[in-house]
């Protein structure tokens, strides 16, 4: 076995451990919180009273207009000055969730608006309430539109979690840095790290296809030309 392969093989367990114990939970938690926040934001902006809608628009403007790395530094290193102290992992989850929420709210808002108004009217005409129409008529159709861009956000997120390294969260990238600094083999270690991220996002892409099929079973694929 060549030396470079041996090094890769030996660093795989600590890297995978960091991935499974930190990167994956960090990603899943942040996406779950972020998506919820994004949904609430979209609803508030579309259907909420003016003041609430404006509040959420301010939030989206603030988060989208500032770098994620700066937000993370503010939360973890800045807020303690104001007496608000977070552990590294919660600080990261908070930062990523706020970020995911801002971006996905726009996706969800657009997807909800993409469902024709007549679908609301049809649902109301058979006696559904707003909540029933939303849940049973509008959301399933909006989901079909939203899955591809939401999968984009999810895949971006799993890669962005490498920024948590600067908040001292021992996720994959930090583990790689640690090993690289003692082995002096940055090329090998960072290549291996990149490959691990690639595998993770490939798994997610496969999941995206499954979801698209589920929400789109009523849409037949265009027939292949002979």
């Amino acid at each position, binding site marked *: 076995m060549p030396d470079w392969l041996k090094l890769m093989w030996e660093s795989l367990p600590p890297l995978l451990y960091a991935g499974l114990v930190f990167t994956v939970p960090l990603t899943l938690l942040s996406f779950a919180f972020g998506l919820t926040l994004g949904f609430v934001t979209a609803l508030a902006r579309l259907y909420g009273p003016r003041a609430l809608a404006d509040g959420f628009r301010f939030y989206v403007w603030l988060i989208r207009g500032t770098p994620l790395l700066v937000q993370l530094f503010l939360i973890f290193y800045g807020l303690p000055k104001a007496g608000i102290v977070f552990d590294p992992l919660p600080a990261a989850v908070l930062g990523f969730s706020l970020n995911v929420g801002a971006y996905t709210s726009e996706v969800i808002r657009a997807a909800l608006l993409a469902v024709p108004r007549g679908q609301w009217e049809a649902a109301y005409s058979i006696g559904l309430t707003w909540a*029933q129409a939303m849940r049973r008529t509008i959301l399933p159709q909006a989901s079909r539109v939203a899955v591809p861009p939401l999968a984009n956000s999810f895949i971006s997120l799993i890669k962005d979690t490498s920024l948590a390294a600067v908040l001292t969260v021992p996720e994959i990238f930090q583990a790689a840095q640690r090993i690289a600094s003692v082995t002096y083999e940055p090329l090998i270690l960072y290549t291996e790290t990149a490959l691990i991220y690639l595998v993770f996002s490939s798994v997610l892409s496969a999941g995206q296809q499954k979801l698209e099929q589920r929400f789109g079973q009523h849409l037949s694929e265009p027939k292949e030309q002979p």
Partner: protein
Amino acid sequence: MIQLNHIDKRFGQHQVLSDVSLTVPQGRVTALIGPSGSGKSTLLRCVNLLETPTAGTVAVGDAKLTFSPDSPPPSRQDIHALRLQTGMVFQNFQLFPHRTALENVMEGLLVVRKWSRDQAAARALELLQQVGLAHKADAWPGTLSGGQQQRVAIARALAQSPSLLLCDEPTSALDPELASEVVAVLRDLAANRMTMLIATHDLRLAATLADTVVFLEDGRIVEHGDSRELFLQPRNPRTASYVATLQEGLPEGWRQ
């Protein structure tokens, strides 16, 4: 019985309906005709409150709601209760694309009436049979022709046994052949004494189906009467010139 009293509808400064009063007799078909923008669709949508009248009274069965610009609008429950007495058929069908034909018809029974799946499916299948589409129960709306979609939509509107069926341009999105299969279904319903209010600019449809015809223009009722009389001996000159297009449809020399 369905009664509309002194209905006004304004969108901003634009007055769409002015002081419209109308009684739709039980078991009869009433057609709303008039040029585009005359307010017939808006009037229809005021009956099941997809549009909220600016002023006036809407009464369907025992539900009666009064609207006025000075008083707060009726509660959501009251609007819901009135709406449940009506079914609606839309110009563009508006079937739920992510549900099969059968599921479209079942939806209200499941969600609003809380029927069991089996009961709802049995009732829905019966209705699909009535519109001649039992064999398409498991089809997605996107795979059906326009006429078939509209017939499923009619079945969906009838599922909860409404006391009034509202039809908003039910055949306008269909070519003549597909329209005729929808007309056949509506005629069956009329024969079974379903109370219907149909907004249409298809005068042939109005003449074929309706017992009573209401001619609207600029948000006002111009003439209201027995359909045969209104088409053959209109009293108002404006009505006369509008319904004349029905006879003038054929080229010169084709008419006896």
